[in-house]
């Protein structure tokens, strides 16, 4: 996927107002089956797969023994003892190695990342576009998925905050599917728009906003952690973070005026000039036309309305902690 096909602003607006399509073939697909695999996945993941009926998926996290985040992913249940996982491209090998290292003898774990093409069609017109392209297949409900006669998997998921779907098919069938959705009116969109769209929603990006140095509680993802299910890897840290609180919190930060686009690693300062940390992500929001970003801030600086400054080269731009997300789709 290129950074942009035409312009990040145009592609971003296409997704917010019509429909855009992203090539997500780089993402990884794992298939898990075998007796007891639900309980096994529940030991590896923070959310509870037992809450999934077949045909549904959930956002979840895989942690290391210290409760730090290895990856965030979506796990779909296809049967009582059949699941598939969609993981981040950069983490395919590490995720697979981690899972294989914890594998139970009865579990079958397959990495099929190289075999699948993937595309995400996103935007208020995505469902109409789907109906026009696949008239015989009802679009699954939010977080649900369905399998087509040709073996493609279509899930009602995405990374933009807009309605839409993700389409995974055998790699050889990818180009035809891509062209079909473009012909139906989807605008090709690149990594740049994917980043501005997801950040407006405060969806974290692994490697930027998520890392082994931070827990899901620090990242504000407690909703996707089930502390009531049987023990899972990293749980002890999460219990401690949940009961005692965390020293840092991934916070949403927005410029109070205009300024140079904030970017990852720019320093974040308190209003008295003390350096508090750095942006884990930052962009000029094409919807709000002002700077937005996220940073792990000391908890006492993470309260809504806390005045901050973002340092861009030698200049400081005033900013404040705001409520997540930055933008709610209509």
């Amino acid at each position, binding site marked *: 996927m290129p950074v942009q096909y035409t312009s990040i602003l*145009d592609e971003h607006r296409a997704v917010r107002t019509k429909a855009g399509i992203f090539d997500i073939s780089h993402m990884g697909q794992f298939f898990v089956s075998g007796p007891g695999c639900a309980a096994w996945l529940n030991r590896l993941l923070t959310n509870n797969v037992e809450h999934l009926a077949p045909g549904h998926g959930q956002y979840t996290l895989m942690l290391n023994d210290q409760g730090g985040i290895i990856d965030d992913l979506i796990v779909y249940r296809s049967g009582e003892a059949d699941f598939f996982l969609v993981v981040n491209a950069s983490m395919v090998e590490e995720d697979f190695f981690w899972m294989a290292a914890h594998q139970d003898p009865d579990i079958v774990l397959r990495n099929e990342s190289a075999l699948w093409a993937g595309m995400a069609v996103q935007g208020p017109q995505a469902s109409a576009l789907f109906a026009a392209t696949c008239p015989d297949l009802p679009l699954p409900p939010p977080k649900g998925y369905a399998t087509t006669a040709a073996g493609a998997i279509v899930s009602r998921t995405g990374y933009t905050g807009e309605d839409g779907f993700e389409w995974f098919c055998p790699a050889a069938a990818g180009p035809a599917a891509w062209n079909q959705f473009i012909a139906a009116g989807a605008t090709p969109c690149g990594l740049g728009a994917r980043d501005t769209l997801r950040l407006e929603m405060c969806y974290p990006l692994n490697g930027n906003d998520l890392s082994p140095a931070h827990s899901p509680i620090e990242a504000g993802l407690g909703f996707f952690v089930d502390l009531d299910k049987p023990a899972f890897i990293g749980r002890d840290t999460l219990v401690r973070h949940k009961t005692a609180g965390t020293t840092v919190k991934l916070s949403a930060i927005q410029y109070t005026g205009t300024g140079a*686009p904030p970017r990852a690693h720019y320093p974040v300062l308190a209003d008295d000039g003390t350096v508090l940390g750095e942006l884990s992500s930052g*962009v000029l929001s094409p919807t709000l036309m002002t700077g937005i970003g996220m940073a792990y801030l000391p908890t006492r600086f993470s309260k809504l309305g806390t005045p901050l400054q973002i340092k861009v080269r030698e200049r400081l731009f005033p900013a404040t902690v705001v409520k997540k997300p930055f933008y709610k789709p209509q």
Partner: protein
Amino acid sequence: MTVPADLRYSSSHEWLRLDGDIATVGITAHAQEALTDVVFVELPAPGSNVDAGDPTAVVESVKAASDIYAPVAGEVIDLNLEVETDPSLVNSDPYGNGWLFKLRVRNPAEVGELLDATAYRALIS
């Protein structure tokens, strides 16, 4: 791609228009197209002295921040404040209302060392 014949060019895609000893500087149509949507421009401090090749302004798109270099040495004597309020002028009118700053040229001979339109067109083709 527009490459006006009356301008001089740097290999880092700035253009320069000389009028007496005053040089107006901006970025080329080719540069603005590569940057795409310009959303922020940072101009130099008026009165500052720059050498040829010094990073003198910053032009930012959503994608990236790009340094703009002084094509020749001189003193910054004027700024286009309009591009601060409407950075898209750099995209829509790179050789006109999208100019960035003016220099009082220290050594006019330096201007002759810049690329002419033919050489610049060859560089970007």
